[in-house]
């Protein structure tokens, strides 16, 4: 289980970073989204992986996993959603200003 | 015991139909026939499972709860919309490339 989740995190990170390093804005948006998944999973994993132990103090739930990372991840999810929205708007503005996608300057060809 | 049998049966039927839907999706020859797989079989599949689950949990608890049915309610509202939209979009695609099915792997809007 631990190995699988770690592998998934690594995969998300690698794919996300590869896309973040691309030149097109949209790829960067995709990459950052993948990266945020990876990050959320790391943060989530810091409370360790337990099935069937939700942090709900109600009847029928005998075990409880660590609630703190979940609260942190929730915060992180919402923040990264806001960021994505902002980045998209910014990409559009940049396109509107420069008439093309991708970052000004770019790389020497 | 009875409830367990009932639950088991419903769960199995549901799972089987979920699988059937996927088989249809994977197997049927074109988009419009594939559309039938998931929108049908999964509906009954999930429906049966929901009922099974409901029976299972109602047997455990004190009162009667119908809340699992809300899943079915929303699925029944939304699944036809999905099918409709997909079919419409597919038709439009076919209009755009009348000679043949749109070239496969590539999003035509990118070319």
């Amino acid at each position, binding site marked *: 289980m631990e190995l699988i989740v770690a592998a998934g995190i690594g995969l998300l990170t690698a794919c996300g970073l590869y896309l973040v390093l691309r030149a097109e804005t949209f790829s960067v948006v995709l990459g950052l989204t993948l990266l945020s998944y990876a*990050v959320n999973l*790391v943060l989530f994993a810091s409370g360790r992986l337990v099935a069937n132990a939700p942090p709900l103090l109600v009847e029928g739930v005998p075990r409880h996993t660590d609630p703190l990372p979940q609260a942190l991840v929730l*915060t992180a999810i919402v923040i990264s959603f806001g960021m994505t929205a902002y980045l998209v708007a910014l990409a559009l503005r940049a396109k509107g200003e420069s008439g093309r996608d991708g970052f000004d300057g770019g790389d020497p060809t | 015991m009875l409830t367990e049998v009932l639950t088991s049966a419903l769960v199995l039927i549901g799972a089987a139909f979920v699988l059937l839907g996927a088989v249809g999706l994977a197997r049927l020859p074109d988009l419009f026939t594939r559309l039938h797989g998931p929108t049908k079989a999964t509906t009954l599949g999930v429906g049966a499972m929901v009922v099974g689950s409901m029976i299972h949990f109602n047997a455990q608890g004190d009162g009667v709860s119908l809340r699992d049915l809300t899943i079915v309610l929303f699925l029944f509202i939304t699944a036809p919309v999905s099918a409709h939209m997909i079919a419409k979009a597919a038709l439009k695609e076919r209009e755009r490339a009348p000679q043949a099915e749109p070239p496969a792997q590539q999003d035509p809007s990118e070319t």
Partner: protein
Amino acid sequence: MSHLAIIPILLPLAAGIACLALERAGLVAQRAVSLAAALMMMAVAALLLRHAGTGAIDVYALGNWPAPFGIVLVLDRLSALMVAVCAALALPALIYASGGTDALGRHFHALFQFQIAGLNGAFLTGDLFNLFVFFEVLLLASYGLLVHGNGRARANAGLAYVVLNLTGSALFLIALGLLYGTLGTLNMADMAHALARVPAADQALVRTAASLLVVVFALKAALFPLSFWLPSVYGAAVAPAAALFAIMTKVGVYALLRVSSASFAGAPVTADLLQPWLMPLAIATIVAGTLGALAARRLAVVVASLVVVSTGTLLAAIAASGIEAIAAALFYLVHSTLVAGGFFLLAGRIASARGEAGDGFRTGQTATRAVTLGAAYLVFALAISGVPPLSGFLAKLMILRSIQEAPFGPLAWTALLSSSLLPALVLARAASVFFWEAKPAPAATAEARLGLPALAMLTMLAASPLLVAFAAPVADYARATAMQLRSPAASEAVLGADPATARERRP
């Protein structure tokens, strides 16, 4: 119950909300709210300084939950100082913006106030995740402020800045996750205790996690090689935004200082995490900033490059890490932030007074109010280059003295002294272009009157002389701050005598 510690966060937050609510009411109402809040912040900052100046450490437990479980704000000398610098920077910047810059786009005042709230939150919080949240608050506000006024350069700078910082935030969260997953706490003081007890088998993991955290702070601080983005980004912002940005790199420096002296230094696992490399990289930062200043073609970019230099200088002192060095760093921090902020405002004035040529290094029309601008330019240029008798000299003197014995000391001296001279030459060249080579303006322009922007800029002008006049009290405060950082008092104030309560081993 004293709520003093949280006022610096709530006040701008409330002002920002009010500005939002007043969006329909027009800019005048927003300006009034925003300026009033900034003025009140100055008063609050004075109260904070006075209170923290007694050596008291206020711990404000949000929601009345004790540390380490709840979030606490820690008001000590350092945080009070940072809040005060922020307030001193914000008010003139807002006055400047109220002269018309704020009308170039939407939500300026709300974003500005939120940025102040974010900055103050970052300075005051004693919780690492809360620090992340406030980083995000201040970053998001800064994104908005950076692109305020729009235009191609700003949009592109904004993209680069946002993407870079989003990646940085991701790194922050990864580090946080790893740290929580090993130390089991988020409170910084508690983390220090947990760090001190890390078993040998976990040390590599903890060290690596801590090093990732350091990378994040280094990015915010713009340490070499993470400094390249800064000149073009800060140089693109409108003047009042850039002025406020002058303190943003200091947040990174602050965080680095906080964790390195309060958390890392005491634990064997992290004690040597910075030492081997910080000084060389700080020196490289100074060099990079100096090169940037030489390469710049616009005044605002020069000032932004000098912000990089100031980061390098500060981190060199922090790398040297004695009481003296930290005290020197703090004095320098106050000086460099205020002067750079004021200089950004001046660059904005020059740009608008020169018409098309802006603040670029090409011959343009004679600046309106050239004498006033020229005099102000002289003061800022002297202060930022560290020329006596202004504060830059005192700050540089302290830094030089305190890092003399440190490893790489001679190299750091060379870099520091060169970073005074070369930018001074650049600034002299710029002055020559702006004030001596100008062609007469075609006709008297509307800019001729002394408006709010000029008032703001002149206010900032006072910072450096005041810092000279009150050098002794400021230096004493800085020294006391450095000593307080080293003492266990803060940790005890947050956690009490026995910090190892209420933790248990989870399966």
